């Protein structure tokens, strides 16, 4: 088979042109454009921002720039990391999940310092502990807080009623003020309403118990402290429902099925309300919310950041501070159960209304005070990785009946090794 010279040249020219075009397009959207570009891209994931507010932002700023918002699915952190590492097609504005923020901080130079753009002036509008988690030690502000995840105790008022327990949020909070009291309540509940459990698994208890403290697994001097008393206490707290037999031991994906049936309470952040609502729509009106036993903790809650390649930092900062202004933040709560990081929003009508899923309860009265009382703690870049073995060992106890003492030993050994691998000493 012989190719004619003319045919070959044509084909080659077409291929070259096509690849040339692709390269040109690929480069154009990211690196080129200088510092006053007219086209800005925003990356976020489904549920990170109110879609309505984002749509309004597009029209609101249409005079100055053209904002293109892309909802990125899948593993967001990984996609952002690869794009930043490649340095091309980097979004001008990007979301960063709260749990990933710590791992981005060592590479703060990949992002713009929001303080330079005027965040310093409005920073006081946002919760300090949340803002601080996105700040480097030398004071560079990487993330603009979107939302937070203050935890609470969700409970089934109808089941509590059946067991002859109080159903009023204040009274339940008083009865379950500490972890021990909460577990005692669960034991009583289990006896009166057979077939129901207090917690879905003990890892979730551990997660919140750790978050209630002011220290985590690695301290600010980069030392591993996951074997110390504060973690041990959280661990022992987590083991209690298991030994008391009020642990549903759900470690597979059947939580959705269990939530409307065998679970009488649920520990989780404000955004968790939406999960419960979607998984168990039939239980509408039967749920209530009260303060977390042992005090509030934070779970999740995200940030917006401007990568260094941002083509128009000034406009981009205007856009994010508009999207995340207390007024628009409050709308995020109505639209997508995103709990604002700006306390001023908590008094706005969008948030003070009753929630029909919780029987008309004004849930802000629980989450609002919780949000302000969350302890500030240092989160090291390797923190999430070091925490994982503890969660795994707790699930081992539930699944295989592994002895808690052995599980603790293995978890610490494993966590210590991961810490060493990640350069913690």
């Amino acid at each position: 088979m012989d190719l004619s010279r003319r045919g070959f040249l044509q084909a080659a020219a077409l291929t070259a042109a096509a690849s040339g075009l692709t390269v040109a397009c690929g480069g154009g959207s990211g690196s080129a454009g200088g510092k006053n570009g007219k086209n800005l891209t925003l990356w976020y994931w489904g549920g990170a921002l109110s879609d309505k507010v984002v749509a309004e932002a597009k029209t609101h700023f249409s005079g100055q720039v053209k904002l293109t918002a892309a909802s990125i699915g899948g593993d967001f952190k990984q996609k952002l990391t690869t794009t930043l590492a490649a340095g091309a097609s980097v979004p001008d504005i990007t979301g960063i999940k709260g749990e990933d923020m710590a791992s981005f901080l060592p590479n703060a130079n990949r992002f713009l310092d929001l303080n330079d753009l005027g965040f310093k002036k409005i920073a006081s509008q946002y919760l300090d502990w949340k803002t601080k988690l996105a700040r480097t030690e030398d004071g560079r502000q990487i993330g603009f807080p979107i939302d937070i995840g203050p935890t609470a105790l969700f409970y089934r008022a109808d089941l509590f009623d059946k067991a002859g327990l109080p159903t009023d949020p204040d009274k339940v909070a008083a009865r379950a003020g500490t972890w021990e009291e909460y577990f005692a309540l669960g034991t009583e509940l289990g006896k009166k309403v057979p077939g129901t459990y207090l917690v879905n698994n003990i890892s979730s208890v551990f997660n919140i118990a750790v978050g209630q403290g002011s220290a985590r697994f690695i301290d600010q001097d980069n030392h591993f402290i996951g074997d110390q008393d504060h973690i041990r206490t959280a661990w022992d707290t987590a083991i209690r429902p298991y030994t008391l037999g009020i642990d549903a031991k759900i470690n597979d994906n059947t939580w959705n099925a269990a939530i409307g049936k065998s679970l009488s309470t649920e520990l989780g952040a404000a955004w968790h309300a939406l999960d419960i609502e979607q998984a168990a729509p039939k239980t509408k009106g039967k749920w209530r919310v009260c303060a977390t036993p042992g005090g509030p903790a934070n779970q999740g809650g995200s940030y917006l950041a401007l990568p260094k390649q941002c083509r128009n930092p000034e406009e981009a900062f205007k856009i994010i501070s508009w999207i995340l202004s207390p007024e628009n933040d409050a709308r995020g709560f109505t639209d997508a159960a995103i709990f604002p990081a700006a306390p001023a929003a908590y008094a706005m009508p969008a948030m003070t209304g009753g929630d029909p899923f919780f029987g008309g309860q004004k849930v802000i009265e629980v989450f609002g005070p919780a949000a302000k009382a969350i302890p500030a703690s240092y989160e090291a870049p390797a923190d999430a990785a070091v925490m994982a073995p503890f969660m795994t060992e707790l699930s081992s106890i539930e699944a295989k009946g592994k002895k808690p003492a052995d599980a603790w030993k293995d978890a610490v050994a494993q966590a210590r090794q991961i810490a060493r691998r990640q350069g913690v000493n």
Partner: protein
Amino acid sequence: MLSHWRQYLAISPFFLVFGVFSFFPVFYSLYLAFQRWDGLGTVQFVGLQQFRFLWDDPVFWLSIRNTLVIWVLSTVPTLFGALVLATLLHSVRRFKGFYRIALYIPNVTSIVAVSIFFGAVFSNNFGLVNAILGTVGISPVPWLSNPWLIKLVIALLMTWMWTGYNMIIYLAGLQAIPTQIYEAARLDGAGPIRTFFQITMPILRPIILFTVIISTINGLQSFSEPQVLFGSNAANPNLGGPGQAGLTTLLYFYQSAFVNNDYGYGAAIVWAFFVLIMVLVVVNWRVVQRGRKS
């Protein structure tokens, strides 16, 4: 060689793409195995440190054990079932095309969809299998929390997916065997079982060897099944199921590199694993070849 430059140029796109997207990453990962890198910051040379961590890492060895168990539990029934099905299909007279398609469909179904389906069917508390067992009075079986049953479910999933694929290959092999040999065997008084073991199996040996090696490579790369069955999220970052009983080596690699941002360690895991796969392929080769010499 230079006189053929046009032909070389014509086939060059494949090699360019291969070089950029396959060849370079493979060797870059080898380079990374000797570094510490979080994906964005500076790359720091650490020598053999990652491999020393690997040697001392009980989770790595656990993941190797899990992978091997799942591999054996899935490959043996897959290849055996495929051979039986292929023989049956070979002798079928009507609806050949239908059977072929029906048996091959599992292989082209998305692994993610199948895993979600299996997760629902084998769920501990609300699964279909346990519901059916319940109707005949058997108490629920902890399919997705018992360390052995987890592996069994994953192996079953893989068997379901890959039996049809291997069957098609065997079927092609069977159709290449001249019918005269079977006629001669029948005239000599050989029954179907004897024909199968004395004629079909020996002639199919090279094809069986091929499927064994392909299945070794495929089976050891199990990743999506446990990843979907025991997906993680912010609130529950444990991977590989309760007690990490479903943690395969590739899942551990993914967890280390992309969840923990420890790319150097991830690279060390896959390179150590590559060596293991090579050893297993050679062992397989020897085992399947041995019968031939005698």
